[in-house]
């Protein structure tokens, strides 16, 4: 038939890919999803979409989906399909055995930012009431934990200050360590729309990204700094602002502590942060730093959007604080068109952060050590809770290698591929006695698992996601879960198997529990979200329909804080053996570890990870475009295909980690953020060498021999 088939049914839901959280209508024929149509009423996307959310949904019923629970005693044994009851009984028995043998703290859990708020909340509840400890972490540990820490320290709230549409009222847009047109494409389009209308663009990124330099999006100033010098450069911009008196004194006096500002001014005003000093160290023209600082300070409405290029450093938290300080100093907070905004990688990183999936915090960023808070949870859950903070994710792996951590329940995460220093993670996984993986596919991590719980994709369950602008939107079930259970049901059954009775009829009751126990979510409920389409937290008695712009009248703590942000260079240095700096990132068509997008037509654009490098670095090593090269660091080695790229500065190389076989994280270091342990993915000293042509490689047949 030449005319297309007409979809029979349509369900409005939220895209599960990046942190933009676009609204979509999932359309089905005969119970199968055939089309995802961007929803015009989606407040994050207004009817727009990108190649991932719009088209790359085939992963959901890919033959690789695991449809039955499986167990095995040892990781070298084949998997054995079992019933759900057997799987839960086996997993719980193992966890209890291990706790009895090695102690209560020898087990833990990790939640996923691809799961719903309700599922993340249940994972931390699993650790606290099922394992009876606080060994619970979430994957924002390895991406945006510095955001939570750095923005809380300065502004009092670890989340974006604006809504996305606010950028349409900005005069100056500062993008730091992010590439929205590839990483957050729908927001990238909104940003480009504003740039076409005349907003000025400042970009801080070591690469000449599409955001920094493309025909319809070109930075007024692009600070292509050396990886690892963010804090120095941001302090240097602050230096210009204080030395040239470009700060907003009235705002600082009204909304901050003047004495703190003076202390900060003394630090960044020091000659060591002068552009003339920082410029050469960061590989920048000092005049560019001055121009960027002046444009930002002048505004009148300047906004900051930043990504993992700021957070994934040994001074990641400091970098985030630098951005908070800059906005405070210039009065760029508390109104439309300004603000400081993290661009979140996975669909529900903000939710992962808010829902108490932390070893030291309950929902709403309240400490487990705070007795009053803990008591409120104990009263609701009717169980005594551990007052001691638990292990962070990297500490769990360290403890596993040390032999004191023996079991982990991993929800929708693939640390073997995604976490840094892969060899270390593999050693940790091998040393555990029970690894429980809940995922869609047999991932790299599942190779080391003893129990596999087949999860449900976001098309197969009900719940909510919180996007990068704090917007809580509905995830609605479009098709029945392929393996029979929605992820929240799996975790409930795990909690039950651990001996804690618990029952929910619907995820809305889980959100009600979150609302009951967390001030920022107080007014949140499924009926409210149904009525308004989506709701930005805080949502409470003062803001019954949510809050679009934070900090309008005051900061959560009353006044905001200037934090002292001294530049301390990373100990990851180049030397004669490792003279190049490797930095990592994302591309448009693939998503994160690629488990979903690699199983879709998106491989037409990007079928493997490649190593981008500057022509001069390639020529010095005899490398030509397309050659296989080895990338070696102090931590490991991998092989990639080289691509000579004008986006790179000499001395800096770049790759992505979307494909398991490229093992990009075999190379990355185990250094991490001083405050939050967020890995330093963005700076690794490496050497690149051409792989010698294999002698048995087929010889090219001379053209004339063919005839």
């Amino acid at each position, binding site marked *: *038939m030449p005319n297309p088939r007409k*979809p029979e049914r349509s369900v409005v839901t939220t895209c599960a890919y990046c942190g933009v959280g676009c609204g979509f209508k999932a359309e089905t024929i005969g119970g199968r999803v055939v089309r995802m149509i*961007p929803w015009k009423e989606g407040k994050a996307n207004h009817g727009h979409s990108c190649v991932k959310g719009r*088209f790359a949904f085939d992963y959901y019923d890919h033959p690789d989906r695991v449809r039955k629970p499986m167990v095995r005693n040892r990781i070298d044994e084949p998997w054995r399909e079992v019933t759900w009851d057997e799987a839960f009984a086996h997993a719980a028995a193992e966890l209890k055995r291990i706790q009895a043998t090695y102690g209560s703290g020898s087990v833990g859990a990790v939640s996923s930012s691809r799961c719903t708020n309700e599922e993340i909340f249940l994972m931390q509840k699993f650790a606290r009431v099922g394992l009876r400890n606080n060994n619970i972490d979430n994957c924002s540990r390895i991406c945006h934990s510095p955001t939570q820490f750095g923005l809380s320290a300065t502004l009092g709230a670890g989340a974006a200050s604006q809504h996305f*549409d606010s950028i349409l009222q900005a005069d100056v847009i500062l993008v730091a360590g992010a590439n929205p047109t590839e990483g957050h494409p729908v927001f990238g389009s909104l940003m480009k729309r504003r740039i076409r209308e005349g907003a000025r663009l400042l970009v801080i990124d070591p690469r000449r990204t599409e955001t920094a330099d493309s025909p319809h999006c070109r930075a007024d100033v692009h600070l292509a700094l050396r990886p690892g010098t963010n804090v120095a450069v941001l302090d240097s911009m602050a230096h210009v602002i204080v030395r040239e008196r470009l700060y907003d004194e009235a705002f600082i006096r009204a909304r901050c502590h003047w004495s703190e500002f003076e202390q900060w001014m003394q630090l960044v005003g020091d000659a060591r942060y002068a552009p003339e000093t920082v410029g050469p160290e960061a590989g920048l023209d000092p005049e560019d730093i001055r121009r960027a600082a002046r444009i930002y300070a002048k505004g009148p409405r300047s906004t900051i959007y930043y990504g993992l290029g700021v957070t994934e450093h040994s001074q990641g938290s400091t970098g985030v604080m630098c951005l908070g300080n800059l906005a405070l100093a210039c009065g760029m907070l508390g109104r439309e068109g300004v603000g400081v905004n993290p661009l979140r990688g996975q669909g529900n990183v903000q939710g992962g952060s808010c829902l108490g999936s932390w070893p030291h915090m309950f929902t709403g960023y309240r400490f487990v050590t705070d007795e009053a808070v803990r008591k409120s949870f104990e009263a609701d859950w009717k169980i005594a809770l551990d007052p001691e903070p638990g292990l962070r994710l990297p500490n769990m792996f360290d403890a596993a290698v040390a032999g004191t951590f023996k079991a982990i329940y991993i929800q929708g995460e693939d640390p073997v591929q995604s976490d840094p220093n892969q060899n270390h993670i593999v050693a940790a996984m091998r040393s555990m006695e029970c690894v429980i993986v809940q995922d869609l596919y047999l991932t790299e991590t599942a190779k080391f698992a003893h129990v596999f719980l087949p999860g449900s994709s976001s098309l197969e369950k009900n719940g909510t996601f919180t996007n990068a602008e704090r917007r809580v939107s509905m995830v609605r079930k479009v098709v029945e879960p392929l393996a029979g259970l929605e992820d929240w049901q799996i975790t409930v059954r795990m909690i039950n198997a651990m001996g804690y009775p618990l029952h929910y009829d619907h995820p809305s009751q889980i959100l009600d529990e979150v609302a009951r126990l967390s001030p920022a979510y107080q007014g949140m409920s499924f009926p409210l979200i149904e009525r308004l389409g989506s709701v930005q937290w805080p949502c409470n008695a003062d803001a019954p329909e949510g809050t679009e712009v934070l900090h309008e009248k005051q900061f959560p703590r009353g006044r905001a804080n200037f934090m002292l942000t001294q530049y301390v260079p990373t100990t990851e240095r180049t030397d004669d053996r490792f003279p190049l700096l490797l930095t990592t990132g994302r591309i448009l068509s693939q998503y994160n570890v690629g488990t979903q997008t690699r199983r879709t037509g998106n491989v037409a654009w990007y079928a493997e990870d490649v190593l981008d490098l500057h022509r001069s670095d390639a020529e010095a090593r005899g490398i030509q475009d397309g050659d296989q090269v080895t990338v070696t660091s102090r931590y490991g080695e991998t092989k990639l295909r080289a691509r000579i790229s004008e986006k790179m500065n000499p001395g800096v190389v770049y790759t992505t980690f979307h494909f398991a076989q490229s093992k990009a994280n075999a190379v990355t270091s185990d250094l991490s953020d001083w405050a939050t342990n967020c890995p330093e993915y963005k700076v690794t000293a490496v050497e690149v060498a051409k792989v010698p042509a294999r002698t048995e490689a087929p010889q090219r047949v001379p053209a004339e021999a063919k005839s």
Partner: protein
Amino acid sequence: MWSELRRLRDDVDYGTPPRDGAPVSLTVDGVPVTVPAGSSVMLAATSCRKSVPKLCATDTLEAFGSCRVCLVEIEGRRGFPAACTTPVEAGMVVRTQSPRLQELRKGVMELYLSDFPASEVPGGWSELHEVMAATGVTTSPYPTGQNHLDAPVDESNPYFLFDPAKCIVCSRCVRACEEVQGTFALTVAGRGFQSKIVASQGERFLDSECVSCGACVQACPTHSLVEKSLFEGGYHRAQPPQA
């Protein structure tokens, strides 16, 4: 600007983007309606449920005025202004239906259908098919002449295809690529009868700057750009009529 985007509704296509101006009152087919200044006559008509047929207009894109099916009558004005490109004015009296308008729209639709695969008229559900139903035109009286019915289909993109035989060159895809996505990968090449939609410099979609965001597919009113997932067993285009 941002609050205008938020006025978009999923179940309504206002035809032109909602605006934020001061209220302006007018009547459409005798019904009084008040809309923000800067709105089009088409938006005013849609707001009071008077549907004006349209092909090149949609409310996520700025008005363009190329398809000529949204013609209306406005008291005190000569001719038949396009509802999409005419801004509202206070006291305006608009008529969306009259024998003369019907005749004009029919004439335009017959021209479109003279270069559209006849075999794909029945059973279709695109916006073009809706306008066919609204105007009662499903055939063209013209003899088979020069046409685009055997222009090659571009199936290079993994997710959508472009069949120029169904294209009416309304340029919604081109404008979506510019205004919504901001990539500017598409353009109209050539003039008059020769004009056609091309990606980059006449490359295949997959080889062009296209980032496959889907905005063009979303915007296309004729299913000329359409998701491959809606076809079972591949895309088999209709045979061109025998001369």
